[in-house]
Every structure is written in C-alpha cells, then in structure tokens.
C-alpha cells in the first residue's frame, strides 16, 4: 500500500509547516519559559481573578447575543430575496477591516455618555461605557462578523433541494429552518461561534477605549505590562492562552453534544449514529 510521497504534498507540507511554526513557536516559548509556581501565585491576586471573571462573563454574554442575533441574520442573507444583498453582506464584513482602536472610537461616539445612543440612556442612569456593557459592546463589534459570515456560508451550502422537498411535504419556513437548514449548517456555524468567542475573549483595542475599567483580561495584561514589565504581563498572557484553549475545548464538547455529523435520511436530518 505504501506509495512514494507526492511531491506536491511535500512542497505544501514544507510551506504549511513554516506557517505552523510561526503560529506555534511563540506559544511554545511561553510554555517552555513558564515559571509555573510563580505564575499561579500571581494569578491568585484578586485583581487577576477579577479580570478573568470579567473576561469570561463578558465573552459568554457577547457570544450568546451574537449567536441569537447573528444566526438569523446569516440565514436571511443566505436565503431571503433581499434588495441590495451584497451591500448588506459587505456591511457585515466592515468591522473586520476597521482596526480595534478605531472601532473603539466609533463605538464611544455612539454609546458614550454624550453619544447618540448613550446620551438618552444616560438620562435614565444607564451607562454603556466603562462597565461590563462597554466590554460586551466592544466584543460584539469585533467578533460578531465571524458568526454571521459562518452562518451565511453554512446556510448557503445547504442543498436547496432538501429544503424544497420539505416544503412540498407541507413544512413551514420555520420548520424547514429548524429541522433541515439549521442542523445541516450547524457544524460550520459552531466553528464560527467558537472563533467569535475566542476573538471576543482576546479583544483589546476597542475594549481599551470603551471600557478601560473594569479591566478585562487583555486590558489587565497591558496594564500589568506597563506597570511591572514582562514579569507582570507573562502570567496573564499564560492565562489568556489557557482560557482560549478552554474555549476551544468547551466548543468542541458542545458541538459534539449537538451533533457534529448529520445524515440525511428519508425521515429528515438525523444525527449520525455511531
């Protein structure tokens, strides 16, 4: 069975591993030079624990909002006959090309205490900057495109014939969405949600402007670096890498539960058995 290695694979493998090294080496370097006991002690400080709590809470809230609002939007963009559809799609991509700091300034002018939305709310003593809401808004801005785009791609890749077949059998649009489109598109959407969650967790630029306080983990890392140098920032960087790893693990677990493999059967879309 053994075949000579395909030269294309060898070439691609060389190129690919260069990129992989670039991605993995900095993290390896962090772990290799880890001062485990010192760092763990550092993280027992109330400030660090508070920042971790803020980051986890904010990123879960923003990921839930992104999913709840972004998946319907992705479906709409993939399936509805919208006028100016390309325009809407490019609007979704917009935050991806705006640098974080610039995004923060734009958000601040909208949601700040004298902003278009912030000012009327301020009269009701509702503040959207310098608190958890500010962090969530910054995360939503930078990370939700991942959800919308993956939902759009996921729904677009569902074979319309399956949906049409369900329609001829009398299923409503909602039933088709729930029983056919969503399960088939889900693996791609779940990957998008995971990416968005990680992006939200690591968000720095827009957050710094929208909510310097309370410190999220990335902002806290920057503050520690500014005040204590590398020794202060490394334990927090370590925490951030761990947190991102945990997010990937949780996501894989969740998408495993919700079924990462579906089969189309005469009775509808079913999780793959075995």
């Amino acid at each position, binding site marked *: 069975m053994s075949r000579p290695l395909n030269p294309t694979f060898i070439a691609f493998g060389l190129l690919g591993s260069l990129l992989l090294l670039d991605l993995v080496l900095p993290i390896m370097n962090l772990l290799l030079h880890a001062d485990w006991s010192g760092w763990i002690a550092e993280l027992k400080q109330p400030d660090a624990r508070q920042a971790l709590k803020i980051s986890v809470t904010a990123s879960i809230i923003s990921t839930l909002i992104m999913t709840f609002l972004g998946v319907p939007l992705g479906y709409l963009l993939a399936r509805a006959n919208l006028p100016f559809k390309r325009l809407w799609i490019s609007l979704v991509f917009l935050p991806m090309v705006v640098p974080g700091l610039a995004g923060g300034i734009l958000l601040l002018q909208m949601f700040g205490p004298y902003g278009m939305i912030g000012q009327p709310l301020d009269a009701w003593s509702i503040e959207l900057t310098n608190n958890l809401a500010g962090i969530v808004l910054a995360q939503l801005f930078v990370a939700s495109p991942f959800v919308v785009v993956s939902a759009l791609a996921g729904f677009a890749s569902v074979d319309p014939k399956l949906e049409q077949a369900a329609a001829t059998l009398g299923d409503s649009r909602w039933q088709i969405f729930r029983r056919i489109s969503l399960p088939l598109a889900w693996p791609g959407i779940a990957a998008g949600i995971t990416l968005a969650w990680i992006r939200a967790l690591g968000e720095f630029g827009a957050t710094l402007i929208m909510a*310097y306080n309370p410190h999220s983990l990335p902002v806290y890392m920057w503050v520690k*670096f500014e005040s204590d140098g*590398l020794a202060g920032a490394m334990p927090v960087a370590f925490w951030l890498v761990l947190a991102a790893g945990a997010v990937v693990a949780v996501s894989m677990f969740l998408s495993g539960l919700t079924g990462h493999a579906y089969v189309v059967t005469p009775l509808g879309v079913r999780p793959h058995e075995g």
Partner: protein
Amino acid sequence: MISKKREHTVAILWAVLLAWPSVSASASPQDHAVSVLYAGSLAAVMENGVGPAFAKATGYGYQGEAQGSLGAAQMIRGRLRTPDVFISADPAVNESLLMGLHNGSRVKWFMLLASSQLVLGYNPRSKFAAKFRAAEANRIPWYEVLETPGVRFGRGDPSIDPKGYRTLFMFGLAGQHYHRPELPGLLGDPRNPAQVFPEIVLMVQVESGQFDAGVFYKHEVEAYKLPYISLPPEISLGDSRFAARYARQTYTTSSGLQVSGAPILFTITIPETVRHREAALAFVRFLLTSDKLLKQFGFGNVDHQVGGDVMQVPAGLREFASGTFKP
C-alpha cells in the same frame, strides 16, 4: 523545457529571498534613520513637529514610537525594544527602571530636555463649557467647575503613567494652596475607575466630547488644540522654584514604585540599545538646540543638566550639558 524554465524561476526567487536582507541592509535608508521611543504625551509634538523638522534639517530618517513612559522603559529593560533615543516624561523613570546594574545598565546618563506643567483641558462643546470658560478667564476658581454635579473629568492612571500620579500630587497641593482640604476628595480612590484612563484614551474621551474635561500636560492640549485652564505654579508642577513644596507629595504605585512630587521634566538619552549612533547623536543634538520649537509646542525651556554618569555622555553632546541633575 517549460518545467526547466520554471525551476529556474523558482531558484532565482529563492536566491533573491535569501540575499534580500544583505541587499536591503546595505542600501536601505533605514540605516540612516533614528528610532525614537518617547513618552506617549509627546505623540503629536514628535510626529507632526520634531520628527519632520529633524529629517528636513539633517537628512537622517526618523522613526518614532509613542508608549507610556513606564511601559517604554519596561520594554527597553526587557529587550523588547532597541531604540536609538529614549525620551521620558520623568527623570525618575530612568533612575528606577533603566539605570544601575540591577536594571542591566540600559541607560547610563540622561539630559534634561524640557519642562511642562499640568493644565485642565476641556471640550469646548461640553454642556459646562460656559463655566470652564469663566474659569479660564479667572472669574471663578477651576475646582468649582469640577465640583459642579454632572461634570465628568478624567485623569491618567497613576499605576502606568507619570501624569496619573502627578495629578494626585496636583490635587494634594491644591488642597493646601486654596485652604480647601476637601479638594483631593474630588478624585476618590487614586485609581477611581470612573476617572482614570490611559493617556491616549483620555484624550479621545475629552476630544470626542464623552468627557467634559481632563488633566493634561500643557503641550498636549496645545497639540490637540483643546482650550484649557492654566493652574498656578504652586500646584502645576511646572515651576522648579516650588520643587521643595512639590516634594512633600508622595505616592506608591501598585507595583511598589515610590514616587514623590517634582517639577515635570522630560529627559533624553541614548540608551545602550542604540544601533544608529550617528543618527542618534544628530537627533539629540537637534533637540537640545531646539528651544524655540519646543516652546512653540507648549514646553518650557530648561538648562540641560545631566543625570547619572556625566563621563558617559558622548563627547559630541557635552557642550550642551549644564551642571548635574539632582533629583
């Protein structure tokens, strides 16, 4: 035949890639550019004023980077940045983070470059602009505006920014100067989350009108064209005649760095990380002879006293040195 040709192309590509660093190193203008790491509040001054003026006057290139003074020093110390010139917003940053064996002797000397002072900058479109203008014209005291309910004012974070702890000192001095001991209470906790921001964020907050006012250096509000209220020299930290009074104010940062009040002085040095010595010397010389330019940007001119080891000051710069600096 065709695949031979292609192989040739690939080989040439690789050769170019491998040879590129040496080609670019010998021919690139980067070689003649000075890289300057400077205190964040100088961003507008350096990028719009000093940098271009230096390049025009000397023919050297200029590459600047703004960082908080403490963060910048931490970067040099941790070998994350290797600037040719370092400009700090506080002599103490050199002394406590960069000088001496325990700091890896990254810096051995520095020279005083210019002085500055704290002012209260405000947004001209603020709801309270009329009151701020009245204070600017000295019709009402500045702290009365800050005491007005609803006024939002911001300040630097004392744990990452010299201006942050200087603002604490200023309010302490104000309490004594005006016989209003309750004034420092306007700040709340030293790191009051409703008031403290990184330098650049604070400017964004006030410029965009989300905050009514902030405590800034005079050269910052001049650069960003914000209207401002000047403070008396007894509390502005801008006048060395009041150094003894300033010195009675102290603060310990969250990382344990002990700082005390002192006139606001910017320092310049060529750290041991220098790679383009000629360009660095030219740049420092240019700044030390730019009193007029610095004044235009809102700085005060000072005698260029030397801190640290006088013998380490490069020969080409000694003529500008005037006395030794004692903190």
